[in-house]
């Protein structure tokens, strides 16, 4: 065991920091700092900037156009992005998660068709797994794809599809064999959102945000060549993808940034009393930092040993998701605690590019509306990517052999 950070990595961190500081447009950082999710334009701009540097896919190997960084380097990269208020690549479902499925299981033609446009950010993907009656029990999904000549005909509905309203493609799990055991009859299809018969309908969420959608498929004809990997092997690919998602879902770098924001809020006089002056609050903050530090080391350990531990590795990844989501909620709850009565207004997302100088109810400081809105959305963290109870089930089964 050697737990010292190599000097090259420190140099790497400085290199990343300097790049991000110079390349990240001030207006994008500003919006992010105020707590608002990036606009679509901003996402694509930042993506483009990273792509030009060859850094748009920090987790992918070089041969597929990624950075080829080792997991610690990608970790540091995201740490620096979070610290500098760069947008989180929230359409990562498309970029960082679908990509590895394609380069691991897809055909050469598919790699050539899809990967380059993911790398440049020209095409964004969303993840079409959940259905109205198949959430935690994903394997029961019913959206069907029936082969008809050179095409599949897709019918059914997805729900909670993040960013489907800005995505170009949906990576959809579909049922291709109704008679097989549920897990054995699922396949993965890449479906263009613009295809005739696809309808995307927004779902408004408790933070008033625009995040998730319903996606309807009505006799959508999809070229057979869009089948990713083998027929009826979709469940394996989905598990592969979800395993990666649990890693990134810990979002510990973003939580570190939120803790800084919390300290900031607690130091302000706008909320009547400075919370940082209260011993009880300082204790909560200390506890939060201590727990976050433990998570950070856990995430780093997972990054360094990924794939080496089998079942325990799966269990550990689920543990990261559980702790990561709970910490995101704890920071948010402490932010609400500082805000006190100032949580009450319904803060509306400002128009794209014009968030300064707009009316702020109750005379709140400029970063409160976005922070509050984000805190509301944090309730989703224990639900998406597999609810925490599901993660605990995975831990039991994969680390302890189940019943």
């Amino acid at each position: 065991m050697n737990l010292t950070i190599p000097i090259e990595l420190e140099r790497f961190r400085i290199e990343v920091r300097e790049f991000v500081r110079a390349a990240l447009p001030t207006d994008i950082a500003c919006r992010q700092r105020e707590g608002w999710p990036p606009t679509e334009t901003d996402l694509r701009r930042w993506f483009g900037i990273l792509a030009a540097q060859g850094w748009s896919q920090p987790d992918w190997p070089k041969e597929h156009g990624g950075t080829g960084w080792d997991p610690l380097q990608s970790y540091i990269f995201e740490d620096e992005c979070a610290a500098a208020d760069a947008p989180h690549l929230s359409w990562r479902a498309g970029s960082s998660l679908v990509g590895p499925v394609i380069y691991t299981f897809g055909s050469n033609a598919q790699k050539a068709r899809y990967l380059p446009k993911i790398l440049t950010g020209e095409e964004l993907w969303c993840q079409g797994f959940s259905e109205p009656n198949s959430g935690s029990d994903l394997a029961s999904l019913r959206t069907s794809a029936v082969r008809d000549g050179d095409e599949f005909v897709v019918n059914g509905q997805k729900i909670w599809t993040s960013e489907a309203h800005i995505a170009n493609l949906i990576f959809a799990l579909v049922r291709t064999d109704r008679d097989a055991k549920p897990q054995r009859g699922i396949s993965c299809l890449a479906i263009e959102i613009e295809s005739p018969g696809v309808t995307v309908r927004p779902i408004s969420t408790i933070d008033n945000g625009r995040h998730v959608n319903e996606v309807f498929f009505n006799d959508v004809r999809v070229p057979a060549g869009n089948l990713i990997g083998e027929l009826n092997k979709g469940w394996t690919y989905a598990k592969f993808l979800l395993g990666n998602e649990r890693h990134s879902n810990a979002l510990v770098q973003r939580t570190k940034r939120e803790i800084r924001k919390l300290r900031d809020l607690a130091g302000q006089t706008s909320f009547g009393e400075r919370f940082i002056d209260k011993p009880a609050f300082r204790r909560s903050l200390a506890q939060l930092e201590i727990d976050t530090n433990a998570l950070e080391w856990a995430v780093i350990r997972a990054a360094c040993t990924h794939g080496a531990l089998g079942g325990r590795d799966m269990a550990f990844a689920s543990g990261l998701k559980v702790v990561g989501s709970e910490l995101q909620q704890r920071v948010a709850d402490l932010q609400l605690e500082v805000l006190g009565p100032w949580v009450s207004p319904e803060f509306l997302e400002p128009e794209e590019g014009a968030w300064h100088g707009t009316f702020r109810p109750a005379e709140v400081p400029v970063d409160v509306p976005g922070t509050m809105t984000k805190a509301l959305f944090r309730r989703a963290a224990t639900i998406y990517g597999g609810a925490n109870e599901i993660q605990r089930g995975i831990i039991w089964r994969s680390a302890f052999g189940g019943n």
Partner: protein
Amino acid sequence: MNFEFSKDQLILRDGIRRFVDERYSFESRRQRVKSKSTGTDRAMWAQIAELGWLAVLIPEEHGGLGWSIADACVMFQELGRGLVSEPIMDSALLAVRILTRADSVSARLLLPKIATGEVFISVALGEAGLRYEQKGLSTRAIPIEGGYKLTGKKILVAGGDVADRLIVSAGTDSELALFDVLAISDGVERRAYRLLDGQWAVDVTFKDVVLPHESLIIGSQTTEILDRAIDEAALGCSAEAIGCMDRVLEITAEYLRSRQQFGRALADFQVLQHRIADLFIETEMARSAFHSALSAIDSPVATRQAAVSAARVRIDQAAHKVGNQGVHLHGGMGMAMEYPIGHYYRRLIMLARAYGDTEHHLERYERLKIRA
């Protein structure tokens, strides 16, 4: 001792329940929240007045029912349960309790009109940088010939968008005082916005507003009177939060019973049964802390304050757990505005911070009971 509701209380409660079913359904609420430009609904307010809810706490000699806070809390609990988002707490409780104890006769004469809904009154205490205490407020009422000149800015005034009058706290030369201000006076400027629970509030600026002498409602011992009224409102909010929690438990249990995953109802998973059981225990302990505070609401100041704070700490913590878990147990549905649970969550966040939050009340309790 008797924990049962009286006959009158039950009648009022059932009336509210019927009203909610008929005129305040979740669907109609959603339609209202969806429309961008509405404000507090005066027509709705007139209906509410007709049902007598605004008269509950007004003394009989002023045209009200003269109920105690404990009696009135059955109403607030039911309003919480039904997710009725109207500024009833400020107008029918806080304002009424202040006016009832007012020095000025003209102020007390407002009470019958409040009961009928003819006069809509809001309370403007909050300021930027003022959390829950009035200490350090910057709104000023300077004595001038014939009255006062009012200058300052108030925030988060519930129902202020349609209010006819505002009760405004301000510092005079010597003391904290409360004034009755016509909302359409020269120099009053209001800016409206929606709150998380669908109610409307305003920020109000007072620029050299000239007030006659009679507008002074309370000019001495204001802090004591205001603190007491705020404690009463804090209990009203507790009742409302308990009503919300009761309902969250019902709809969440119902959801788990009807939602099928893995070929069975979610309610079949023992971990979820236990989760609901824990939330039930939380809610019942909150209710008991609330009863304890109700029993002390007319006690000497220190006893009352400690009891109210104790209740609020318990209730606020329960509200957080129940609200958070209510959302979580609904899965994706918990995040959707189409479903009631998210609306309860938003309401509970606000209630847990109305008239004092956990930190405020823990600190007050500690000051009164531990350090003393």
